């Protein structure tokens, strides 16, 4: 394979597609599939034939706006239809080449206008299981360019220049990580893609893997070339069966096209990828626990250093990046590190994909430039809180993050500013809460999560989260005293400072951030035995009932 051959594949497909007057893209991501968009696609295919139209009906990945699914996008007109049912197929087919079906049109202009799609540039436009669709949209150009025109050092330089930071949450500079692995001595090295998206309320990685899996494989192959690895693993949750089957199909296609395997592009570079299924353990998102899991053991973390970059999988130098990080690699090499660095803020470059959910009108997947404000995301893109309720807080970073109150919505989205606000970027879960959510109960929810997901290896996390949960339960059911609040704060400090891995070190964050901004709610529960949001059920002592 060389650039000319790649271009030829792209041209052949583009030529084929030009034979059609229209392209009907049907979203078949998990959200729309749950509303039977697969049957809808069949109906549309039949309706197009019946109406005598010359149109291509294509299965695509996620179009982002899950709230309005099933979604159908008509190209080249770019007409987006929402809530499409099988019974609408005929009218859609008949409208091709004429006026669009007004009743089905989605007119959320603002939702899309403020987004910038880099990672999601192909989502909703290509068939995720057809590698040629990806190639026709410049797919694998970056890999072929890297292998035939660049040294590994030049690849790393480009990534460093882009300013890309790890999208799994930590924000470690990607270029620096790559160069550490590249410099590490070893006869074998590994590249691992962390797709163990355990953060409840987040589905960015699932969506990328379902919608544009080749992009992730290409990013991994480029990384392998840069650091000198010949074997890769994608660690993906078993709870994501569609992502797993699309990954499997994509691996077969990439091998068939000679873009994975031995002597790729007739160079000395050989690289192949295997899938490893996670088995439902949140802690496996931590890199040393993930490595233990690939090795077939219980997913418990170990102290670092040594970092996986030096001694990782089977003791060998290992590069671990998140799905979204790998998804950014190909565009950076195609368009240059400088192009990427021009997006975003001084220290947080590029874009970030968020799973926008909770009490918000336009739930779904969004990709925004770093530096955008939370207000723009929730109001313009998200369409505000429905049902006449008021936004109370935005939760980012999942069980490791915190709740940012409504009066701070004007802060910008960057690694630094979110940490300053007591939360963190995290992997991209963004959950909007309104006045019907109790912040103490939310904190209890996350602590319960961390308690059950604690691997049990270190005591601060195993016992500390359990004690935190007990205290929060007492506060929620109205049996706590003010002294319990001091105990809780004290315990948060201990768990944060002394836990072995990120799970324990960040488990207190949801408690600390709600205490920082919503302390009055805690006090209301403790002193007045009352839940302002009306969520918690209070237990009254016999004496109180008698009175």
């Amino acid at each position, binding site marked *: 394979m060389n650039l000319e051959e790649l271009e030829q594949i792209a041209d052949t497909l583009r030529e084929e597609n030009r034979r059609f007057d229209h392209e009907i893209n049907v979203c078949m991501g998990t*959200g729309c599939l749950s509303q039977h968009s697969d049957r809808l696609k069949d109906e549309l295919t039949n309706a197009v034939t019946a109406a005598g139209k010359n149109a291509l009906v294509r299965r695509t990945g996620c179009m982002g706006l899950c709230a309005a699914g099933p979604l159908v996008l008509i190209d080249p007109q770019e007409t987006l239809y929402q809530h499409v049912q099988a019974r609408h197929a005929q009218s859609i087919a008949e409208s091709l080449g004429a006026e669009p079906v007004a009743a089905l049109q989605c007119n959320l202009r603002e939702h899309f206008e403020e987004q910038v799609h880099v990672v999601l540039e192909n989502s909703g436009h290509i068939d995720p299981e057809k590698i040629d669709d990806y190639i026709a949209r410049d797919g694998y150009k970056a890999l072929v360019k890297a292998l035939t025109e660049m040294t590994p050092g030049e690849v790393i330089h480009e990534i460093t220049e882009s300013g890309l930071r790890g999208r799994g949450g930590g924000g470690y500079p990607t270029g620096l990580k790559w160069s550490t692995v590249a410099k590490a001595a070893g006869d074998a090295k590994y590249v691992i893609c962390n797709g163990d998206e355990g953060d409840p309320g987040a589905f960015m990685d699932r969506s990328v893997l379902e919608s544009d899996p080749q992009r992730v494989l290409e990013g991994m192959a480029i990384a392998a070339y840069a650091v000198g690895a010949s074997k890769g693993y994608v660690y993906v949750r078993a*709870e994501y069966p569609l992502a797993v089957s699309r990954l499997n199909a994509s691996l077969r296609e990439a091998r068939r096209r000679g873009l994975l395997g031995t002597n790729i592009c007739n160079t000395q570079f050989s690289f192949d990828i295997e899938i490893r299924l996670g088995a439902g353990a949140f802690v496996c998102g931590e890199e040393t626990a993930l490595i233990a899991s690939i090795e077939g053991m219980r997913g418990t973390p170990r102290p670092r250093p040594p970092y996986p970059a030096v001694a990782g999988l089977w003791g060998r130098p290992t590069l671990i990046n998140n799905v979204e990080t790998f998804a950014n690699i190909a565009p950076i090499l195609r368009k240059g590190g400088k192009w990427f660095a021009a997006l975003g803020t001084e220290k947080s470059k590029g874009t970030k994909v968020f799973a926008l959910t909770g009490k918000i009108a336009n739930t779904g997947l969004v990709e925004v430039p770093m530096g955008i404000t939370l207000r723009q995301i929730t109001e313009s893109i998200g369409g505000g809180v429905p049902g006449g309720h008021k936004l109370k807080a935005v939760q980012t970073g999942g069980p490791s993050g915190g709740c940012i109150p409504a009066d701070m919505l004007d802060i910008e989205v960057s690694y630094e500013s979110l940490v300053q606000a007591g939360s963190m970027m995290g992997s991209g879960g963004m*959950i909007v809460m309104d006045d019907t959510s109790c912040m103490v109960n939310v904190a209890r929810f996350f602590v319960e999560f961390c308690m059950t997901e604690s691997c049990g290896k270190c005591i601060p996390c195993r016992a500390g989260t359990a004690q935190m949960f007990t205290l929060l339960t007492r506060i929620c059911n109205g049996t706590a005293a003010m002294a319990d609040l001091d105990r809780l704060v004290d315990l948060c400090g201990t768990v944060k400072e002394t836990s072995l891995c990120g799970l324990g070190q960040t488990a207190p964050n949801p408690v600390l951030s709600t205490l920082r901004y919503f302390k009055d709610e805690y006090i209301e529960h403790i002193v007045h035995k009352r839940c302002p949001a009306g969520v918690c059920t209070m237990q009254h002592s016999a004496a109180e009932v008698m009175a």
Partner: protein
Amino acid sequence: MATYGAMPRLPGDDKRWKIVNGTMRKNGFARHALIETLHTVQSSFGYLDDEAIRFVALSLHVPLSQAYGAATFYHYFSLKPPGKHTMTICSGTACYIKGTDRLIADAEKRLGIAQGQTTGDGNISLMTARCVGACGRAPVMLADGELTGQVTSEQLIEQLERWSVE
């Protein structure tokens, strides 16, 4: 007593053991294939029993403690046979914010069992999941693996009743 070295015999004539063996063979009977193999056992048999864990451990030359450790550490693996039908209610953050605890309570009341249990007649298992990644459609239920979004208590109870009268 179990001896390591010789390959254990397949536990029975059931064809599914050959599928399990196939996963191990594909991985060269390497120790690190333990979790992959347990996945195959669960997808073939629906759960992991002692016989299966013992067979896999012996085949991969992994101590029984390590195999049992992995089987119990990971939430995805179940050591009990599932009911004929499984209702899984997502309890991820987005679903929680949209009132999933109400759904769970209603299902528990209707079936007379707690989450994680199976009805006495072995008909329905009630499970909760830590986020199935369909947060855009929260709250979400999986009826025998089929996902329904923006689900109401009425829809949930209706589904449970359909299974009950089968």
